[in-house]
């Protein structure tokens, strides 16, 4: 995966030079946003499963999708769905910490849309769940971190659209 810091260092090394003023300035801003990012990651680590439950209950349950013929039936699929949403939350958290989307492209989105289409996973409902997750997150980590996390969940949504 790439991350903000490495993406600044590597091109400098390709030129055999130290970081220039603008690069240092960019790093500076990133360092200053650090504590906000870490605080949000901390909250998420301690409440992930309840974030997922809330997301599922208010976006997917009590309709046809969990009934025979629906893509969250049977339990294997229901659990796969919980697992996927947990993946999305975990990788969005990583990306938010690195302030870089590359990990989402490499580890999450790579081939995902095709897999979902092959398996008949309804992508519109996945996106609905991801949008719900943004609200659930804002409730638990606050507006600033919630917005920053939104950037990465939106990147997943874009990759599935």
């Amino acid at each position, binding site marked *: *995966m*790439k*991350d*903000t*810091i*490495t993406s*600044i*260092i590597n091109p*400098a*090394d390709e030129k*055999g*030079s*130290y*970081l220039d003023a603008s690069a*240092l300035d960019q*790093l*500076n801003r990133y*360092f*200053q946003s*650090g*504590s906000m990012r*870490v605080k949000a*990651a*901390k909250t*998420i*680590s301690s409440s*992930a499963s309840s974030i997922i439950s809330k997301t599922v209950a208010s976006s997917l349950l009590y309709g046809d999708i969990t009934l025979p013929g629906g893509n969250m039936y049977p339990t294997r699929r229901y659990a796969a769905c919980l697992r996927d949403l947990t993946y999305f939350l*975990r990788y969005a*958290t*990583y990306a938010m*910490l*690195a302030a870089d989307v590359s*990990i989402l492209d490499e*580890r999450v989105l790579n081939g995902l849309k095709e897999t979902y289409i092959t398996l008949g996973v309804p992508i519109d409902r996945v996106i609905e769940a991801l949008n719900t997750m943004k609200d659930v997150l804002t409730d638990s980590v606050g507006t600033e971190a919630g917005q920053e996390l939104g950037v990465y969940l939106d990147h997943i949504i874009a990759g599935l659209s």
Partner: protein
Amino acid sequence: MSLIAQVIAQSDAAERFLSSAEIAKLEDFFSKGQIRIRAAQKLADNEQKIVQEGSKRFWAKCPNTPSNKGNPQKTALCQRDQGWYVRLVSYCVLAGNEKPLDDIGLNGMREMYLSLGVPLPNLRVAMGCLKDVAADVLSSEEMAVAAPYFDRLVRAF
């Protein structure tokens, strides 16, 4: 791969959200952000001084070495190498870990210098001298974030 990427990779390999130990590592890293930036800047501004003064001390300790045999090309290449290693240390200071040094300057370094016939023990001495001069240039607070990488460098040769 910076400390951030490293912590993420570790957490990902464990297939779980960040552990409190991992959270702590990140908090500590970000808390020293300003110092890291100042230290990196000073190493950049003083590279020439560090290399010139470092070479003097090095040749004093270890006169019988390729760069000290009157072949200007070898002298130049040796000093260039030293400057490169100071630069890699400045990258490490900002990345928060040894990866830039390992990936750019150490991975394959032994094979390279052995094939070039440049004696590793001499390189070790030279790196030690660079550290000493750097310690004079940086504040103790700044040196605290830079020293581990100079040490890694010395150990590597």
